């Protein structure tokens, strides 16, 4: 039976627990480029030194069939311990960290600080003509902040991409 929704796109935040070994990131990235999957963001860091585990968070979009493929393809990589579709599995937190440089003088500086306060962005560096703000939040919040800063001197942005974790007692234990 043709499913009317089968071509509908959805976003997925996927957490992957992997061996912390050389080449693992290349395997994951190569999988996405080789099979033509979309990556919106990808973050990786070691999370358990003793058990040599790293955690990768991938944000992607695709049809349900493609997302299922992505998960199955990730899961069959030899150094992958666990693949979890946080979007599908229930409430979860997504955070991103951004460092945002704003250059300006006079009233623009005052306005920048006021907006930063409203968005709970912290000043982590300041000179007479620049600020660097640090903020965390979901991607939409950072996007909104950057958009507001645009006319008052947004100069440079560095973002981590999303990290995510399930709410409540659920874990990604292998």
């Amino acid at each position, binding site marked *: 039976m043709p499913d009317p929704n089968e071509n509908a796109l959805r976003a997925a935040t996927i957490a992957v627990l*992997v061996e912390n070994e050389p080449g693992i990131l290349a395997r994951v990235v190569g999988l996405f480029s080789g099979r033509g999957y979309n990556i919106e963001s990808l973050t990786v860091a070691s999370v358990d030194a003793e058990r040599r585990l790293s955690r990768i968070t991938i944000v992607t979009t695709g049809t349900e069939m493609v997302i299922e493929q992505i998960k199955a393809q990730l899961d*069959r990589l*030899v150094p992958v311990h666990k693949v979890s579709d946080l979007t599908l599995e229930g409430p979860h937190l997504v955070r991103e960290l951004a460092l945002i440089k704003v250059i300006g003088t006079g009233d623009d500086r005052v306005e920048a600080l006021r907006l930063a306060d409203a968005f709970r962005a912290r000043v982590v560096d300041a000179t007479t003509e620049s600020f660097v703000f640090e903020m965390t939040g979901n991607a939409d919040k950072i996007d909104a902040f950057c958009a507001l800063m645009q006319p008052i001197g947004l100069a440079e942005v560095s973002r981590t991409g999303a990290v995510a974790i399930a709410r409540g007692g659920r874990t990604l234990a292998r």
Partner: protein
Amino acid sequence: MSAATQHADPAALTMSGAEVVLRALKEQGVEVIFGYPGGAVLPIYDAIFQQNAIRHILVRHEQAAVHAAEGYARSTGKVGCVLVTSGPGATNAVTGLVDALMDSIPVVCLTGQVPTHLIGNDAFQEADTTGITRPATKHNYLVKKSSDLARVVHEAFRVARTGRPGPVVIDLPKDILINKAPYTEAPPEDQPHRSYRPQTEPDMGQIRKAVALLKAAKRPVIYSGGGVINAGPHASELLRQFVHMTGFPCTNTLMGLGAFPASDPMFLGMLGMHGTYEANLAMHGCDVMLNIGARFDDRVTGKLSHFSPDSKKIHADIDPSSINKNVKVEVPIVGDAGRVLAALIAAWKDDATQPDKEALAGWWRQIDGWRAKDCLRYTQKGSIIKPQHAVKRLYEITRELGRETFITTEVGQHQMWAAQYFGFEKPNRWMTSGGLGTMGYGLPAAMGVQIAHPDALVIDIAGEASILMNIQEMGTLAQYRLPVKVFILNNEYMGMVRQWQELLHGGRYSESYSAALPDFVKLAESFHAVGLRATSADDLDRVIREMIAVDKPVIADIAVDQKENCFPMIPSGAAHNEMILGPDQEGNAALVTDEGKVLV
């Protein structure tokens, strides 16, 4: 802590890394390595020289080493083993690795590497082998510590052999091979790997769902692929049992030929682009489809949106990523094909529902109607040898002689004719490059088969274009006295290319003529083999019999009809019920849309 570190007491280290590698290979049951030496792997070659347990077969090109290991693996069910040097040795092996990846063939390929302190320096014969082979393998390793060596070799064999089998590369820097290294034995089979745990046992709930669907089917079909072959001969035996128990028709993919006996009346022949009319129409018209160990490849499905539109589909595969990749199915089952079949047989017996015998009888009547089209019919008259006739006679004569026979092929029209006209009764007798479609596969694969089965009759059914892609391996046949028979269907064209140009590109035969061919008889003789030639239909049987009788490698150059095309055919972008049955229907190809033309 791993066993490797426990043994790392330097005083206990008596073996070089190369010796550790060989000992690990021996423990893994390796009897033969196909390889080619070079600077970076000299320590392993030195260790090979000083032992007798493992035999080394010197190929003439590294691609052939991998295909030979594939032939060895496919005909025995064991892991094939390859040894090549760094840089060009490794890059030459890449085609073979991708071939093994696409066809799920277990191969472990050891590649030499420059010493660890030179990695990244663009040293002589350095290549980023793990980088290059990452998408060409199931998994790969770069060994940077002597203490990892034995563990990695053992793990590589486990990864290659288990789950969905595939090629694994171990990149070995020269200093790691020379330095002393600790040896550790392979962990017990039941000790789980840290992260790699393929699911082999099917979920019984899914099995019961599948059986319920199958029992209620009115027009069922069983479609099996290479997964059944990979699951071992027992799985093929179970497939036969299940088909007979259910009374359902059975078709095999190109990779799955031999899993179900070709002579069995319940066999519909191969399906897909050059499959039989009855197999493809049964797939198109069925109401329940059971796919075991096949992957809904585009060569099988034709136009996806029109593929088997009215059926409920059950798909059993050991690789979860194969399920719902191309075709959405109602009942997915993850597991080893043999275990799935055993579970299906048990559940079929347990389920008291009676299948709809009347509907099934009607379905068989319909199938017999399609069979009556006799879609593989051809006419051999006059002296020009029809290629189909050449394969058919080869089949009939080998059958009459009753010798254990293994067939390999190259890629193209001859490959499809071999699949259509050579009947396989048992698994592991048919070696062909299905997924990657690698011209030059057949001769080296036949070498590997002959090494594993010294007394068997091993025939590479070839085309005159493909065979030239690895013709240098005639030297290997001579060196090891391997009596492989190369049966060339010589139509002086890259026949499948010419066929597509005829059907889709207005007969403009751009670069598909095999110009300046060698004299294959003299070529055979120059490689210490026997050369034979058949130019007329009257010569054919004599040449086939002589080829088989000679206890030496033979090239039999069979001059066949240059214009013959391979039918039946589902044109690209068409559905199963839009098959072209023969040349009189070639006009149908004009219906191929641009959308179809972009497909390969």
